[in-house]
């Protein structure tokens, strides 16, 4: 594991998301109403919609382009839609958000 501090929890609006840039595209970091934090690829498996711009409800996000709904914890599409988004380990420590860069690297190596 290789935890990197990517910013403060306060930088993300509750029920919202911000993105971080990586060499292989953006990762969306979500913050729920209950201050849980999740990180997923910012790319909808349907037609590439930016999930970071979706409406966050509970621990789910709705893609802004065609309303597919994803579970933030698993990245799994909900309901009748099929697809999955890669997720990354994140945690909050003392108000700072830490992301596991090891996983990002593995992804870029793949």
């Amino acid at each position, binding site marked *: 594991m290789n935890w*990197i501090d*990517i910013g403060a929890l306060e930088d993300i609006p509750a029920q*919202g998301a911000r993105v*971080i*840039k990586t060499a*292989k595209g953006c990762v969306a970091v979500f913050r729920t109403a209950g201050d849980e934090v999740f990180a997923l690829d910012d790319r909808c498996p349907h037609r590439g919609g930016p999930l970071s711009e979706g409406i966050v409800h509970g621990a789910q996000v709705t893609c802004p*382009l065609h309303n597919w709904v994803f579970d933030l914890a698993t990245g799994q599409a909900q309901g009748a839609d099929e697809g999955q988004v890669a997720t990354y380990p994140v945690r909050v420590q003392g108000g700072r958000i830490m992301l596991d860069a090891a996983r990002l690297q593995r992804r870029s190596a793949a």
Partner: protein
Amino acid sequence: MMGERLVVIGAGMASGRVLEHLVEAAPDAFDITLFNAEPRGNYNRIMLSPVLSGEKAYAEIVTHDADWYARHGIATRFGEHVTRIDRARRVVATSRGETPYDRLLIATGSAPFIIPVPGRELRGVVTYRDLDDTEAMIAAAKPGAKAVVIGGGLLGLEAAAGLALRGMEVTVIHLMGHLMERQLDPAAGYLLQKALEARGIRIHCKGATKAILGHDRAEAVLLEDGTTYGADLVVMAVGIRPETRLATDAGLDVGRGITVSDAMVTSDPAILAVGECVEHERQLFGLVAPLYDQAKVAAATLLGQEAAFRPVQTATKLKVTGCDLFSAGDFAEGEGREDIAFRDPARGIYKRLVIKDDRLIGAVMYGDTADGTWFFGLIKDATDIAPMRDTLIFGPAHQGGATPDPMAAVAALPPEAEICGCNGVCKGRIVEAVQGGAVTLDSVRAQTKASSSCGTCTGLVEKVMAVTLGDAFAAPAKQTMCKCTDLGHEDVRRLIKARALKSIPAVMQELGWKTPGGCHSCRPALNYYLLADWPLEYRDDRQSRFVNERNHANIQKDGTYSVVPRMWGGVTTPAELRAIADAADKYGVPMVKVTGGQRIDLLGVKKEDLPAMWADLNAAGMVSGHAYSKGLRTVKTCVGSEFCRFGTQDSTGLGIRLEKLLWGSWTPHKVKLGVSGCPRNCAEATVKDVGIVCVDSGYQISVAGAAGMEVKETEFLAATPSEDEACEITAAFIQLYREQAKYLDRPYKWVAKVGLDWVKAQVVEDRANRAALFARFEISQSVYRKDPWAEHAKPEERRLWSAMADLSLEAAE
């Protein structure tokens, strides 16, 4: 052909049903005249409580409208009180003259009982019987004002709950030891009292009213024990007595009610009576189920058929949202009677069954009433319950080894089980209707009447439909907002206002949302309703907005955005054009396009460039064009009298003025306007949401056009010689739309639902109302008539528009 002359006194729930049977069975048999003391036709009286609480509108509970009476050739004399029946001459008299009859039907219902205490005639003292009473209560229901309800029976408690929902401080005075003592035993009465107290309603049992105090209007209620409760409103709901005065004066046999035979005929063979005003075998009736049976019999008798009324058992439910109680049969303790009780104090559940001679004779339930129908069936059919006695209290799901699936209880019901108590509709009848093609709740309702009266059995009816149809059962016909709630948009809008709910969490909590944070479909709707209803108190929730409104730009399929600066009335200047061109160059805009609404669209802008680009456009004097919003989009104009040789008025000037008045406002869906300088209509105003066509004499305003998936010409709303008035009418129309329409209904859809006549009455004819709408629009605009670009282009905001961290180098290591 002239039929026999049938005169009906009273347009209530019982006579309404008689008329339905008559016009269905023999449309031409009678020449019908219908008198009603209330200045309106028949409505579903038992649904007055939801109207009182704000959960329903009056229009939703009307059962027979003017059109229905006209279609069936029934002469209506509403607002006319029948004062005398002359049996010898066979005429009835009102203050406006006499009307002859061959057959007469008395259906005068009951009158509320007024306890003879001093002060009962003061202003502010009302009863609870009809729409006028309900409206009087709503008018008095100012949040924080005090109400005292005298009477803790069904009616009194429904009134108390409704007034409490409207923000009043409510006290219920009840003479007996526990609430609803005729329907509930003390244990259930206690649970009900707790539940009502938890809603802030004060309950005073064993309280006898001594006097109502006050000078020219009610101020307080004094009890025998010396307690006084302050009261701006006093509701007397202590009981009813059959309205028999006409019959007594006419010399008919009258006991407590008008005496009728099994065929519903009074002591005069030409005269029938139905409803709460009758007495049959010494029994009176106060619930609709037996009245509907009477109505069926009376209709048959009038048509010369044999029929006999046999009273059935009735069951009671209280229509207070969240207080689930059910009672049926006889549950007094007594010789040879045995009790089975079940209590779950933690969940507030209480059930009690009363058994005599291996038959269930009474059932009282509080908290969980799902099995009520099944128990009621056992009581009515006098089923031998000995074999299932041990598990009886757990309901049908536990009989015969069935699984505890919520559907199983319904699936297990026999065809004769009654589902709708009010209308006596059994499961078999519903199944038959569904198999015959009635697959929506509305069609089942239309064909069987199931759930069409008090509505508490709607869930059961839907379950029967689901069991019958299996997977083919579509969502309930009443469109719910989304899967997070069982309420429809209209219900939610009304409840937000009636219960003064001012935040999304408050709405979700109070209205029982089923999901923790809503979903992408309800959250934007709730955010809109709240900001439209509470413009000064509610703070717009960006996170509940669709991406376009959150980012004040339209997202494109590749994740870039389009930027459209506002051009008032479609007019621009060389300086603005230069600034737009510079911005397009500076930010590498791949496409610059002119839109259908006379604006310039800069497509393909990256999100992180938005604030800087807005700042540049702001610096050149331009603001957001809101091309992304469910709000005022554009006012399209032609050049009008300033340049065109046909122009009659300054259409461009009016368009600019309207756009400056309306911009920034949020609406249920987008709103586009057009102003043309003459009927040649170069601005295509007559396919807009609001279109104004200038003529020599002034301005013609038409509304509810569409030019999208559907194309529809606008409909005429008003004409005015004055530009000021044209602006006021336009803004009032938009405010009415903002206050009333369902989220995502364009104006044309909304107008089709409410009717253009109603809209005209609100914004054109009723000038005071128009002014009030306009004033409310201005209040809202004091908050929302501002440029969102300027706000987000502020330096401290800008960083929020780009990535929070850049790890591209890290990951590439």
